């Protein structure tokens, strides 16, 4: 913890300033306050799992995280507060919680992309619990007023009502040719979600399979990651594809064109988060068109 005077501290994970009231966990993101920051030699900071039964405050409500393998976010909603989520992550609710559907814009495109067409809104008062049914960690991301982040699709768990949700084309794609057909590939998904807290602070919960790691990129600094390993990034971080072709093959052999690594380049400034569980890269033919990519032949 970075001490700022006697009365406040800044959480190194969510970077929010809190009153130093001796709590064992950060009231904004649930990160433990009594552990050392664990940073790898290359600069990745391990996001510590939220402790069992840790409480996070938002608005006039609280969120309590329980469980270790497949954690549950249990929210005690105040009358004035509401949250939204995809309906299949609802684990249990009190009958007094008002559940309503929340239609999203651009329905057909959402159906095509395999993301929920309708979100569910839970209005307090009462308890409602959310869980993604995969082993992993819940990441709590408090957002300051007008702060936004970009989240890869299918990571979203729940957000408070004042957090706006837009979804945009990821604009990261390439095509390959299979016979007469052109195949389109979207290594980070076809769409990317953007969450922005409007006017007042908000809370966003994500579910990341495996462990998650965070780092800052300086202006112009680049790093290559597995495309499906990205969880979220600051909107200021740019992303584009990078193809690497290994040395030792003849230039005209198909192996040369297919034996390639497909990376996602992230370019700062800004913060990024990755997860340790990601999809195995798909095998595909030679690349014809891209959304903009760099290439390296070794």
């Amino acid at each position: 913890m970075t001490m700022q005077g006697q009365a406040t501290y800044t959480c190194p994970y969510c970077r929010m300033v809190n009153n130093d009231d001796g709590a064992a966990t950060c009231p904004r993101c649930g990160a433990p306050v009594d552990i050392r920051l664990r940073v790898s030699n290359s600069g990745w900071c391990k996001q510590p799992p939220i402790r069992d039964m840790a409480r996070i405050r938002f608005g006039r409500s609280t969120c309590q995280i329980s469980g270790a393998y497949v954690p549950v976010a249990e929210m005690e909603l105040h009358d004035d507060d509401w949250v939204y989520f995809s309906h299949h992550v609802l684990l249990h609710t009190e009958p007094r919680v008002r559940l309503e559907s929340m239609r999203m814009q651009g329905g057909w495109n959402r159906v095509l992309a395999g993301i929920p067409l309708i979100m569910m809104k839970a209005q307090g008062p009462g308890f409602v619990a959310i869980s993604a049914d995969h082993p992993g960690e819940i990441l709590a991301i408090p957002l300051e007023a007008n702060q936004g982040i970009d989240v890869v699709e299918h990571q979203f768990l729940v957000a408070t009502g004042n957090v706006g949700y837009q979804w945009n084309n990821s604009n990261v794609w390439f095509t390959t040719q299979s016979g007469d057909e052109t195949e389109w590939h979207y290594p980070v998904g076809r769409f990317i979600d953007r969450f922005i807290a409007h006017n007042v602070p908000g809370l966003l919960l994500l579910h990341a399979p495996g462990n998650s790691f965070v780092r800052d990129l300086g202006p112009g600094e680049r790093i290559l990651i597995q495309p499906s390993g990205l969880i979220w990034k600051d909107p200021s971080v740019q992303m584009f594809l990078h193809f690497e072709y290994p040395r030792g093959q003849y230039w005209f052999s198909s192996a040369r064109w297919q034996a390639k690594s497909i990376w996602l380049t992230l370019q700062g400034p800004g913060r990024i988060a990755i997860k340790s569980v990601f999809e195995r890269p798909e095998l595909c033919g030679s690349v014809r068109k891209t959304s903009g990519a760099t290439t390296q032949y070794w």
Partner: protein
Amino acid sequence: MDRIECQWCKAQNEPERTSCNTCGAPLDKRNLVSDSGWSEAPRLRDMTEFRFSNSTCQVEGEIVPVAELALAQGDAVFFEHHVMLWKEPAVPMAAMNTGGGMKRTIGGMPHILSIAQGPGRIAFSRDAAGEIVVLPLHPGMELDVREHAFLIGTHSINYSFVRIKGLTNLLHGGSGMYMDRFITQNYPGLLLLHGYGNVFQKTLQAGEKILIEPGGFLYKDSSVAMNTVQMDIKTGMMRRGMYLAEMNGPGRVGIQSMYVHHGSE
């Protein structure tokens, strides 16, 4: 002499014990209860050992735990045969006809349960990340368990299965066609379940209700009524496909956090 009461199973233990002799729950850690009253099933420490009848059970591993039994002469356990991980060659095996015939085939449940008799060692595991939930059953208890969730039951427990009634429950309940029912009569018994993900338990008062995701249901006292209710909420362009299980007390309800969710648009 002072005794320590286990917060999970209420058994009395000697003061020097760090885990319950009846269910293995840590005695030196507080029961974790969320603000809304859900208790976490105790996370058994690696190599925790507890007793039933004249036999012992040791739970090993944490992500996909294994229950290893040292069965004494005269003790026996029953289980679905595919949860057996290893056994000593000398442990006698028998089969128990469940009496369901074609109904069980239709319900996707095994016709025959296996029985392992002591003396000897045998180990069980369901091959998925989760927790072993240890439920000591006092005489005169009835417990309903989601199908394919039970790991072992001791020989003093009577096993039967109940059909989930009502078409809505059947089609949208997410618990299959049948539930396993475990009944103890004059003697106590021990039941081990495998919960996927983390397991939580809540005790409902008479008339108290809670709505849960049907795929998250794990077990309940048979006094708890379970009905599937359709929520008046759109979940797609044309459909109202959200169903929740309404649990009506009195009694205990157990849920798991990694669940089967059903297809939706």
